């Protein structure tokens, strides 16, 4: 696997979306290529920051109530 191929698989590697075969090839490549290894680590970090630092708001109770009422009413 060369760098271009590894880059094509980069996001899928971060997200655990690679096939077994792709995973093997990708891991082999990043073990020998510091540039792709670094890029992979950076992409992982970016994902983690987004996952952890974006606040999740709770739907207002009035909205929840109106949705519950909605399925209480025959259409």
């Amino acid at each position, binding site marked *: 696997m060369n760098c271009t191929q590894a*880059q*094509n*698989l*980069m*996001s*899928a590697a*971060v*997200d655990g*979306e690679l096939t077994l075969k792709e995973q093997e090839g990708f891991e082999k490549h990043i073990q020998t290529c510091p540039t792709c*290894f*670094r890029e992979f*680590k*950076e*992409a992982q*970090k*970016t*994902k*983690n*920051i*987004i*996952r*952890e*630092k*974006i*606040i*999740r*708001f*709770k*739907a*207002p*109770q009035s*909205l*929840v109530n*109106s*949705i*519950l009422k*909605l*399925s*209480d009413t*025959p*259409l």
Partner: protein
Amino acid sequence: MTSSPNKKNAPEPKKTLSEKEKIKQQEFQEEAIEHINALYNYALHLTMNPDDANDLVQETYLKAYKFFDSFEKGTNCKAWLFKILKNNYINKFRKNAREPGKVDYDLIKDFYHSIKDAQNDNEDLNAGYFRSLMHDEVYQALNSLPEEFKEVIQLCDIEGFTYEEIANMVESPIGTVRSRLYRGRKLLRTKLNDFAKKHGYNTENGETP
């Protein structure tokens, strides 16, 4: 109004749910309602406006309930609801929406503070929903990305959808989802770089600044 308790053939004063309707209602509540917070957040990200987000979620559920029979059981209900919401959003808002990629930082800041203040009082800590604090920088960085990158990152990293689900939602091949995520994260990374250093995210193995 005169009461007439003996009136036998009078129509029922109020429509009640048929048996079939009751089952549908129960299934709907079990499957769909639990995703309301995720949908509300997605709607907020799309509209940047709590009132519009409210409307959008309501319309989504109305549509979802109406067409609940067409929902394939065993498939991802959250993904199904997101798709409905997205379509609704496109029909309703996008025609007049601001150009993608153009970001009004003041708008984002105002929005963030207004919604944070409004919700601070009734946080339900038990729900564990507010486990992380949002940082303005991260939110702004994400929002400053071109729409097509922002969207896949939201769906993947925040909502946890699979590539297949995302591809279906954004109506693009999986390969496109992959490359948008790759490019989007790369863009985002440069924007987050300062933030990462400041908050100690740069300490993984092999990282010596």
